[in-house]
């Protein structure tokens, strides 16, 4: 077991984490970034065919110049004592001690169960993009992109750039909600440019609002999707369904560390400080807000952890502006109540333990469901069904216990406080 002390340890190498590490190092602190992926960038800045997106490059270059230590392909699974994290990588267990910790663990997709959603080739929207970026060829493949949020457009655009045959984008939000949202865009010039780019590159692709998948079907893998729009239902053949219903903050590690969690994510003060001393949070885990907000929150956390509150303060205005955009986004893409009727009694809710909806129907909450059905107790620890049941039943996961991800027994043994 190796033990090392770091001034500012950042968990997550996405936009918020990279910005935080760069700013902390700029203040003279020793900084390190740990990420479960082999390459920096997180989800939104994930490298495609080995190349990082242009927006990510300056941060990665700066991190290198500032001497930020990069700890890739390692996953935090426990916090054995204050100021220390236990991690696992392919070689074994690693222990890191820190003076300040910045959590930038990002977000994951919300999945909603519908008949056939467990079939191979039904994927998340961001999930499919991640797989294509990491080497899955989709040239000529028929893809339906569905769910909700601006991510659908980004995914469709990316898949098209990889020569996929994007048949349809099904956005559950109403046209009227999107129109109100678009009216706000002129206040955010960077978003206008992005929208224009989407419109151009998705020219000719059907974009249907108020539309969602009702069922996926096929022999051993996806072959067709049944969609609904208003009263009309119809079936489209396809090779892949890329389907995500918005994003959820990855708050498990923050919860394990005892940080206060609010309705939108980890609660922070103006300097991105969580309720726990020396623990900051930045980016999507404090509430879904997009990449620009994540970067500025990361910068504020980095400056604050590095002792430069004055420089952090200068970014408050920018953060507030991006925050207003995030709030409008949340309203525009709120999930419609009709989506609660997609899952049928036999539809699996928990994919790890194969628990169908009718088995949890009489359960009063998470505890009850876990005790009686094992729902949420498999390897994903409720990360998939949790988001679904939060929407379907209003259940909130109650507790997070170590290990926050499945690890080898040898790694667990190694986390015992040394005598």
């Amino acid at each position, binding site marked *: 077991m190796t033990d090392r002390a770091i001034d500012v340890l950042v968990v997550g190498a996405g936009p918020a984490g990279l910005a935080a590490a760069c700013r902390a190092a700029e203040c003279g602190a020793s900084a390190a970034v740990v990420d*479960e*992926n*082999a390459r920096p960038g997180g*989800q939104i800045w994930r*490298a495609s*065919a*080995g190349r990082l997106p242009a927006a990510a490059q300056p941060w990665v270059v700066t991190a290198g110049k500032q001497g930020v230590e990069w700890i890739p*392909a390692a*996953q935090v699974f426990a916090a054995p004592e204050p100021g220390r994290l236990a991690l696992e990588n392919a070689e074994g267990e690693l222990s890191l001690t820190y003076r300040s910790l910045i959590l930038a663990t990002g977000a*994951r*997709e919300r*999945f909603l169960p519908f008949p056939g959603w*467990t*079939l*191979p*080739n*039904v*994927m*998340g929207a*961001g*999930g*499919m*993009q*991640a*797989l*294509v970026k*990491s*080497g*899955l*060829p989709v040239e000529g493949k028929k893809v339906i992109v569905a769910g909700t949020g601006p991510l659908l457009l980004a995914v469709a655009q990316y898949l098209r750039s990889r020569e996929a045959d994007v048949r349809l984008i099904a956005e559950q939000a109403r046209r009227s909600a999107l129109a109100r949202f678009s009216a706000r865009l002129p206040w955010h010039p960077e978003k206008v440019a992005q929208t224009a780019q989407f419109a151009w590159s998705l020219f000719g692709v059907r974009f249907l609002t108020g539309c969602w998948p009702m069922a996926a079907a096929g022999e*051993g*893998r996806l072959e067709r999707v049944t969609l609904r729009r208003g009263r009309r239902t119809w079936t489209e053949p396809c090779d892949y369904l890329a389907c995500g219903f918005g994003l959820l903050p990855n708050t498990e590690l923050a919860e394990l560390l005892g940080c206060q969690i609010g309705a939108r994510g980890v609660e922070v003060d103006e300097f991105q400080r969580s309720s726990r001393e020396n623990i900051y949070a930045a980016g999507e885990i404090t509430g879904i807000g997009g990449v620009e907000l994540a970067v500025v929150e990361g910068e504020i956390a980095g400056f604050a952890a590095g002792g430069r509150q004055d420089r952090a303060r200068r970014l408050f205005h920018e953060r507030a502006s991006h925050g207003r955009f995030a709030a409008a986004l949340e309203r525009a893409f709120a999930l419609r109540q009709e989506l609660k009727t997609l899952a049928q009694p036999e539809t699996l809710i928990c*994919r*790890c*333990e*194969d628990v169908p909806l009718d088995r949890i129907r009489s359960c009063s909450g998470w505890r009850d469901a876990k005790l009686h059905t094992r729902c949420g107790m*498999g*390897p*994903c620890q409720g*990360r*998939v069904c949790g988001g679904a049941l939060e929407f379907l039943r209003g259940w909130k996961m109650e507790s997070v216990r170590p290990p926050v991800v*499945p690890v080898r027994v040898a790694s667990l043994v190694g986390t015992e406080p040394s005598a």
Partner: protein
Amino acid sequence: MAEHVTIRVNGAPVTVPAGTTVAAAALLAGVHAFRRSVTGEPRAPLCGMGICFECCLTINGRAHVRSCQTVCAESMEVTTD
């Protein structure tokens, strides 16, 4: 770094660009059932980012490894359930 790497998926060689994940290579190799669920259903990658554990495979003899979080290395041996 080599431009391509070759791994074996259920014994069959698959050559992919360096940096490709095992999940992408397995899909490319025609694998549809990465694992069998507790009731025997075929499952394949869902989240693509290490959250869902649906893409778990046996890699170099180690069971239950998330293939979407594992980059292909030369001569890697990958088997499905």
